[in-house]
C-alpha cells in the first residue's frame, strides 16, 4: 500500500513541473488521496491543490510502481517510496507501456464496478487492445496517448465534476453518423463524493491528418516567397481548402443542432455586458486598446440592440484552424471541450454558431499575418497578408453559406461582436504571453472598431456620435 503521507511530497514536487499543471507560480497546498485502482498495477490518485486565494483544483495522477529503477522512464519518475517496508520506484503510469493496456481492455469489457464506469461505443473490436501506447508530446492541458496509429486516448488531467462536453458530443454525433468528427470509441468516468468525473476518452486516430493551422501557414509561406503574385495566383492557394472547411463546419453545426436542438436567441444584453466586462479587464492590461475601445463598445451595443435572429445551439466553443484536421478525404473537427476558460457546467450552454465562425475567421487572420510576425513588417507583405486573409475568410464563409443555406455575413452585427470579443481575449493573451504577436489582434480590433462606427453611421445618420465621443455605453 502506498501511504498517503509518503506520496504527498513526491506529488507536490513533481506536479509543479508538469505541462498540464495550471497553477504554476501560484502559492498553494497540495494534498493527495487515493481514488480508484484500475488494475493491480495502476492506481489513480487525486491531487488537490488549495490555493491561498481560496480557489482549488483537482488533478488525476495515475501511478504505477516498479521494484527497480527504469532507465528508460526517467522522464516519468515521481520518486522513491517505501511500500510495505520495501523501497519502490514510482512512475506516472501513462508512460509505462506495459500497464496502459488496461484502459482499453476495461473499456472493451465495459467494466463497471465500484463507481468506475468504463464505456465502449459501437463495435468493441474498434478499440485496439494490444497495441502499444505512446504519449504524444504536443498536448498542453491533458495527456494524450496514441495506441498504435488507430486510437487516441485523452486523459483529462484537471478534473471537474459534471458531464464532459467532448464525451457528450461524441456520443450524440456517433449516433447521428456525423462525417466531420472523429468517432468516439470509449470513455472512463468515475464517481467521487457524489459527483461524476470524466477521467479519459478514446477516439479514432486520424492517421493521415495534419491540422489546418499547419496547412494554412504553408499556404501563406508559399505566397510570401513569391515576388509579386496575388493570393489567387499562387500555387499554394488555400481557398479551396478554406471553402471545404466552411462546408465541414456548417455540417458539424447542423449535426449538433439535430442532436441537441436549438433555442431562440436570448439574453443578448447579458452577453453584450459580458463582452464589455472582458474589454474593461483587457483595457487594464493592454493600454494599446484605448483608441479603439469606443468603437468596440459600439459593436457590442449594436449586438445587444439589433439582436440576432440566429438561433442558439450547441457549438464547438473554441474553434480555430488548429482544431480542424485535414485527413486524406475530408476535414474533421476535434476537441469539443467548449470554451477553455469557462467552468465545465457552463460549457454545454447553447450559444450562437456565429461564435465558432468568428473563431475561425480570427484564425485566418492569424495565419495570414504570421509571417510578418516572424520576419518583420514590410508594406508589401502586409498587403499580401491582407489579401490572403480576405480571400480565405471569404472562401470559408462561402463554403459555410453553401452548406448551411444561410450566409453568416447576413448577420454582420453579431459576427462582428463575436470577432471583437475573441480578438480582445487574444490581445490580453498576447500582451501577457507573446508581446510580439499583439499587433495581430490590435490591427483587427482597430478595423472592427472602425467598421462598427461606420455601420452605426450608415444605420442611423442623425444618431451618429461625433468623432471623439467618449464611451457611449
Amino acid at each position, binding site marked *: 500500500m502506498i501511504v498517503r503521507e509518503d506520496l504527498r511530497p513526491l506529488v507536490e514536487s513533481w506536479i509543479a513541473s508538469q505541462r498540464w499543471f495550471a497553477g504554476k507560480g501560484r502559492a498553494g497546498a497540495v494534498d493527495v488521496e487515493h481514488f480508484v485502482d484500475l488494475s493491480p498495477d495502476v492506481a489513480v490518485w487525486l491531487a488537490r491543490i488549495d490555493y491561498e486565494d481560496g480557489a482549488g483544483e483537482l488533478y488525476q495522477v495515475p501511478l504505477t510502481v516498479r521494484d527497480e529503477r527504469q532507465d528508460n522512464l526517467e522522464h516519468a519518475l515521481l520518486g522513491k517510496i517505501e511500500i510495505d517496508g520495501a523501497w519502490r520506484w514510482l512512475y506516472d503510469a501513462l508512460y509505462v507501456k506495459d500497464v496502459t493496456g488496461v484502459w482499453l481492455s476495461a473499456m472493451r469489457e465495459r467494466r463497471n464496478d465500484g463507481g468506475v464506469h468504463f464505456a465502449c461505443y459501437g463495435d468493441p473490436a474498434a478499440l485496439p487492445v494490444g497495441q*502499444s501506447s*505512446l504519449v504524444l*508530446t504536443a498536448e498542453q492541458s491533458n495527456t494524450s496517448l*496514441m495506441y*498504435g*496509429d488507430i486510437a487516441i486516448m485523452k486523459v483529462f488531467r484537471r478534473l471537474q465534476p459534471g458531464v464532459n462536453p467532448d464525451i457528450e458530443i461524441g456520443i450524440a454525433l456517433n449516433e447521428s453518423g456525423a462525417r466531420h468528427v472523429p468517432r468516439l470509441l470509449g470513455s472512463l468516468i468515475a464517481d467521487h463524493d457524489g459527483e461524476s468525473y470524466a477521467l479519459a476518452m478514446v477516439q479514432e486516430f486520424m*492517421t*493521415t*491528418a*495534419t491540422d489546418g493551422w*499547419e*496547412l494554412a501557414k*504553408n499556404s501563406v*509561406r*508559399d505566397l510570401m*516567397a513569391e515576388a509579386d503574385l496575388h493570393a*489567387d*495566383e499562387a*500555387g*499554394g*492557394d488555400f*481557398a*479551396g*481548402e478554406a*471553402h*471545404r472547411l466552411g462546408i465541414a463546419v456548417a455540417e458539424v453545426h447542423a449535426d449538433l443542432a439535430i442532436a441537441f436542438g436549438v433555442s431562440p436567441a436570448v439574453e443578448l444584453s447579458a452577453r453584450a455586458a459580458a463582452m464589455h466586462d472582458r474589454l474593461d479587464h483587457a483595457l487594464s492590461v493592454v493600454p494599446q486598446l484605448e483608441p479603439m475601445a469606443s468603437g468596440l463598445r459600439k459593436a457590442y451595443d449594436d449586438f445587444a440592440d439589433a439582436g440576432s435572429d440566429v438561433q442558439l445551439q450547441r457549438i464547438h466553443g473554441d474553434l480555430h484552424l488548429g482544431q480542424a484536421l*485535414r485527413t*486524406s*478525404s475530408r476535414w474533421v473537427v476535434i476537441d469539443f471541450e467548449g470554451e477553455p476558460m469557462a467552468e465545465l457546467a457552463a460549457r454545454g450552454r447553447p450559444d450562437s454558431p456565429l461564435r465558432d465562425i468568428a473563431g475561425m475567421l480570427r484564425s485566418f487572420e492569424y495565419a495570414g499575418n504570421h509571417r510578418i510576425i516572424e520576419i518583420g513588417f514590410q508594406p508589401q507583405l502586409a498587403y499580401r497578408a491582407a489579401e490572403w486573409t480576405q480571400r480565405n475568410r471569404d472562401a470559408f464563409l462561402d463554403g459555410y453559406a453553401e452548406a448551411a443555406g444561410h450566409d453568416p455575413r447576413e448577420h454582420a452585427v453579431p459576427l462582428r461582436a463575436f470577432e471583437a470579443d475573441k480578438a480582445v481575449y487574444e490581445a490580453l493573451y498576447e500582451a501577457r504571453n507573446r508581446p510580439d504577436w499583439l499587433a495581430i489582434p490590435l490591427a483587427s480590433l482597430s478595423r472592427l472598431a472602425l467598421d462598427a462606427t461606420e455601420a452605426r453611421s450608415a444605420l442611423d445618420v442623425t444618431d451618429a456620435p461625433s468623432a471623439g465621443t467618449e464611451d457611449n455605453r
Partner: protein
Amino acid sequence: MQSPPLTDPGVEKSRDPLWFKRAVFYEVLVRGFADSNGDGTGDLRGLTDKLDYLKWLGVDCLWLPPFYPSPLRDGGYDISDYTGVLPEFGTIDDFRRLLDATHERGMRVIIDFVMNHTSDAHPWFQESRKDPDGPYGDFYVWSDDNTRYPDARIIFVDTEPSNWTFDSVRKQYFWHRFFNHQPDLNFDSPGVQQATIDALRFWLDLGIDGFRLDAVPYLFVRDGTNGENLPETHDFLKRLRKEIDRDFPDRVMLCEANQWPADVVEYFGDPATGGDECHMAFHFPVMPRIFMAVRRSSRYPISDIMAQTPEIPKNCQWGIFLRNHDELTLEMVTHEERDYMWGEYATDPRMKANIGIRRRLAPLLDNDINQIELFTALLLSLPGSPVLYYGDEIGMGDNIWLGDRDGVRTPMQWTPDRNSGFSSCDPGRLYLPVNMDSIYGYQVTNVESQTRNTSSLLHWTRRMIEMRKQNPAFGMGTFTDIGGSNPCVLSFVREFGDDIVLCVNNLSRFPQPVELNLRQWEGAHPIELLGGAQFPAIGELPYLLTVAGHGFYWLRIPRRHQPTAEPAALAEALNTAHDQHTEASEVTE
C-alpha cells in the same frame, strides 16, 4: 547494396504470368523513334536498331501505338486493316523481326488495338454501306433516323454535333462515339465479335505480349443507357480474356477506360478469381493529382485519390503515367461531382492551361531538374506499373507551334548531328521538324551527350529504374499512406514480404522537416536506396527527416533479423563475378 539479383533473369524471357506487375513500360511512336531508310519517317527497322538503348535504360515492355494501315486522320487510331502494317513503317516481316529482337533481349511488346471503331476506309465499312444484306451489313450500327440513344454524350464536343452521321450511300445514319470518320463496330453482330477475335489471334500468333485496348467502355450501346461500361461490354471482354488465356497464358490486356477508378475497377473482373477481365487498366487521375499536389505543396491531392482508389483483384495492376501521346481527357476525369479536385481546377487558370494541353514533362515543369526527378520518383514508386513516354528520359521538349497533337510527337533526339541522328534524310523531308530551341533543342538535349554524362537525367532515370527493379515492393507491394506532421510531405510505405520501402516526397520547393510515426519498425535502421547510406535507428518517438525542396527519399526498412542470403551461394556468385571481371580484363589487354 541490398538484395542484388545474383543472376540476370532478363536474358531469357521468363514465363512469369505476372510479369506486367513488375514491368516498366515505354510508349514509343514508331514514326518518331528512328528512321532506317532515310525517308524522313521512323519505321519498325529503325526501332529494332535502337532496342539495345531501351534495354540499357531498363525498359521491360514497349507499348506501340497503332502502326496499322490507316488514312491517318486520327493518329492511326482510324484503322483500315487490323492485320497489316502501315507501309511507311515497314512490313509484317519487319514487325516479326522487331518482336524477335525484343524477346531476345528479355523485353516484351504490347500494341494498341482499337476495338470500338474502324476507319470509314476499312473494307468492312465500305461493304456495309454498299450492301445492307451482305456479310458485313450488320458490322456497324445503322439507323433510319438520328434520334436513338439520346443519353450517350458526345465525346468530341468541339468537332462532332452528333453521334450519328448520315451515309449517302446506304441512306442511313451510322453510329460513332468519336469522329464521324470512325464508325462504331456493332458488337451485337457475331461476325464482328469473331472478326475481332481473329484479328487479335493474328497478332498473338506472331508472339505479341499483349494489347492496349483503346476506348473499351463504348463497345456496346443500349436504349436508355449512356452507352458506357455496359454489362454486355464486360461480358465480351471476359470472353476475350478466356480465349487469350486458353492459348496464350502470359499475354496482357491493358484497358484504356478513362473513367473514375471506382468504375475502372470493374474492368479487372471478378476479384474472387484474381481478375478475369483486363489484367491492367490506366489510372488516369494520378497524373493530374501529382501536378496539383506539387503546385499546392500539399500531399492531399495525392492522398485523396489513393484513398479513393479501390482494391483491385490480386492478379491485376494499374498502369500509371505522367505524360503520353494523347492525354487531353482530363476534363472527363476531373468533372466529377464527387471529386473535390474539380473545384480546384476550375478556379486555377494555370492548372487549366498547363494540364489541359499536350506538353512534355520537361517544359511543363519549366525544365526544373528537381521537379522532373521528383515527378519521376513518384511515377516509379506509386502503386502501378509506370509507363514512360519516349524522350522524357532525356527531358525532351515539345514544339507548341506544331499544334497540340504533333507538338509532343517530334523525332527522338539521339545525337547533336543532322536531324538529331533520327534520320539521314534532307531535313525538309522529316515528318515533323526536330526540336531546335536553345533549351530543349537536339544540339543540347540528346541521348548521346547524356549517355556520356553520368550525372545526366538519362543516367539518373536508369538508376531509378534499376532501384525499382531491385525492390519488388514497388511493383507488387501494398501501399500505405503514413501521413506525417508536415502537409507538404507525402510519405508512404510499399511493402511486399520482407521488402519494405518508405518513400518520402517533399512536394514543396522549400526544405521541409517531417516527423513520421514509424513505431512499428522500431529498432530498424533505414537504408537509402540510391546511395546505401544507413540512417539513424527508428525509435519510439516520431522519426524526424528533413528533405530538400522537391527532394525525396526511398528508404528501405530492413527487417531486424533478416536472414542473409545463403553464404556459400553468395561466395560462389562473388567468385563468378570476379572470374568474369578477370576475363574481361584479359580481353582488353
